[in-house]
């Protein structure tokens, strides 16, 4: 395989791996947080506004770890820094 093909293959593979593994942890965490909040609301319906506000904030903070992985995957796919370097190197060799 050429350098470009190796870079493309590994980037695409790693992007998929990043999103899949990056989705597992936050999914488990968000499910746990939501379950706890539902149980708390069932016990104390009066505290529902405070609980749901805190739940939204904590869900978004947990979700940001998944977003970090998504950003890395997007950079690998669409703004890969090694891709341009490899193309320039190939152009310099006159290929």
């Amino acid at each position, binding site marked *: 395989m050429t350098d470009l093909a190796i870079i493309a293959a590994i980037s695409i593979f790693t992007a998929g791996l990043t999103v899949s593994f990056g989705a597992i942890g936050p999914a488990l965490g968000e499910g746990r947080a939501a379950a706890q909040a539902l149980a708390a609301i069932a016990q104390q319906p009066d505290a529902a506004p405070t609980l749901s506000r805190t739940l*939204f*904030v904590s869900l*978004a*903070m947990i*979700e*940001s770890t998944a*977003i*970090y992985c*998504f*950003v890395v995957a*997007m*950079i690998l*796919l*669409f*703004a890969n820094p090694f891709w341009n370097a490899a193309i320039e190197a190939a152009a310099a060799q006159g290929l």
Partner: protein
Amino acid sequence: MELSPDETIIFYIGTFGVNATIVFTWAVMALLTVASIFVTHTLKPDVPPDRWRTTLETIVLTIQGQIDEISARPDRRLLYFAGTLFLFIVTSNLLAIVPGWRAPTGSLSTTVALAFAVLVAVPLFGIGARGLGGYLHSYMEPNIIMLPFNIIGEVSRGISLAIRLYGNVMSGAVIGAILLGVAPFFFPAVMNMLGLLTGVIQAYIFAILATVYISSATAVPEPTPDPEKELS
């Protein structure tokens, strides 16, 4: 695929390319400023409040109430800072319903600038409330060994603030663009509605986190009770 509005050059001033981020940032600032001036230019004690003024008062009082719930020592300047951050981010995220709008918060340079403002504001508020020595001493809590970790924590929470906002807004736009190619009729609209919800929540979180960081820097530590005095 364009990951940020930085890459779109709208027009040139001389040789300086004005990209979409700058244009839309100034649009948000102009909108907020003109709306505030328009509503408050008739502000007099004897004029009864109209609906626009009541709307603005409701917004400001809601933000003040949220800050009072978090901060132990309510500070008027905290309202100006966190409220401005919230209004700017929420306006730029919600204007995504306008066709052709590229949210300036979907650009890493905007969010890094906002996070940098928070990073600068935290020591300023802290020094203002506790004095230079008191603030610097808070880095050495509970002992001197924690000094590098406290500094790393300070930097890393700035980075996470910036990446969180950028990633959420950018991912909404990118997923919308991808779905437009896959299922172009109904589904992208649903995802955009979800994006509006995410935009409001992220603006709220950004302002809340700024408030939490600042109020934790301004909190004066409670004096530890002296056991000998209590006994006597």
